[in-house]
């Protein structure tokens, strides 16, 4: 799979593609159910956050895998039915702060919701 972080039709492309194909993307991809349970966690995301896909898939993203996002700036934004926003944020690799840019994606037309992560 090949796509730009800010591409306009990215949500549709991600929804069509399968989990392993996300590993070729240069930014982190977290694919979640609309309840926040991780169904795909790509290689780049694993490198940024330090969490292996095996330890991420099946867990709740906002409370178990990335509690740093569990606030109104990120997690609560997913209460919207339609969402496509980019914000500057901070992740922790183990405990090292890492500046990132996040793209929050969700649509009523898609079964899943996504969080894309790009190192600043």
């Amino acid at each position: 799979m090949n796509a730009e972080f800010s591409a306009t039709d990215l949500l549709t492309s991600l929804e069509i593609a399968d989990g392993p194909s996300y590993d070729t993307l240069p930014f982190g991809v977290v694919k979640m159910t609309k309840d926040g349970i991780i169904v795909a966690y790509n290689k780049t995301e694993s490198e940024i956050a330090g969490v292996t896909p095996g330890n991420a898939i099946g867990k709740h993203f906002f409370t178990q895998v990335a509690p740093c996002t569990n606030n109104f700036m990120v997690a609560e934004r997913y209460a919207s039915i339609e969402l496509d926003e980019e914000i500057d944020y901070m992740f922790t690799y183990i405990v090292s702060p890492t500046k990132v840019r996040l793209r929050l994606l969700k649509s009523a037309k898609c079964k899943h919701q996504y969080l894309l992560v790009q190192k600043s």
Partner: protein
Amino acid sequence: MNDSTAMEKQVQAMLSIIYQVPVGIVETNAAGLITQMNPKGVQLLMPFFMQYDLSPENNMLLLLDKMLPGINTAISSFTNESGTIVQQQNYQVELNFQNRQTVRHFFFTVNKIDSDTLSFMFDDITAFYEREQKISQALQDQAVERSKFEMASGILHDIGNAVVGFGSYLTKIKRQISQNDYDTLKNLEGFFLKHQPQLISCFGETKAHALTTLLQGLAQNQKNSQDELQKALGDQMNIVTHISEILTLQRQYIKGQGGSQRAKVGIRDIINDCLPMLMATFSKKNISVKSTLPFDLPLITGDKTRLMQVFLNLLKNAAESINTDHAGEQKIEISAVAHPEELVVSIQDTGSGIDADVLPTLFTRGITTKTEGNGLGLANCRSIIESHNGRLALQSEGPGKGATAIIRFKL
């Protein structure tokens, strides 16, 4: 399993723990540059970094300078090589972000690890703080309520003493007027009649008869006055007894205030206790009250004080809705029926009735149709009845057609 896989597993296990640490932890150098930070720390501080447009700086001291400058002052005035600078201090901070303005409460602990390392531990304790405030407010309200009831109890006690004193005084007057001159006058009348011939010889027949007749009139007047006074005093004593009974009831119910006391209670007894308290109101408005409450109504489990508040309120509302200028008989009818699963009590009045538009709003706090009401009566009544596993409804066919309060208790 090779060493790197084992190490990876350990890291992942450690991550799971670090990610669940329930407080924010940040480590910085002496200049405030963040070197380590746990996810909870990011979660709590990111909104503030954004608020102060400090994200690229990644500097804790710059953030605190805007967010909580007092902590920076404490840090800069701390001269020891290491030690605790701030210990579990609570702070209030405003969070304004994306049109959301809130006040948050944080605790902070700041330690100087060495000359070039600071550690910060913190958490957002707003929910805990608000809960504490609510509990504190509830305790205060409870104390105020208790003191009100203590005051009311004291006043009732004093009035009770005064009423007893007044009753004793009336009894004394009654006793005194019973020892009046009527009997003496009657004896004198008898004496005059017995010695009529002597009187005639002294005063002449006409005068002697007139004297006896005068004496008879005086005795009769005295008798009439005595009877009237006795009757008036009897009425006064009945009123005093009635007031005493009401005071006793009020004191009995005031004793039950300040806490919920559930026991088996009889609705008939409660309503019968309410009626004397409102008798003056009913009588003033010439309202006839018809209560048909069967003796064998089933008991319900409840707080008799709270239920009495409800029935007093409903009966008072019924009485207040009745306009004295209105022609025809004004009445309040109280009835109750026990079904296998519920006990239904109705209070029906011939008052001013309720507009269909107003009816649904009457149980809303703050809504009232009275000029001097605060709109809490019916809302409180409903909440008390619901706390007794019951329902309270008001029915009216419209203005001028009276209203009926229906209370249903599940059995």
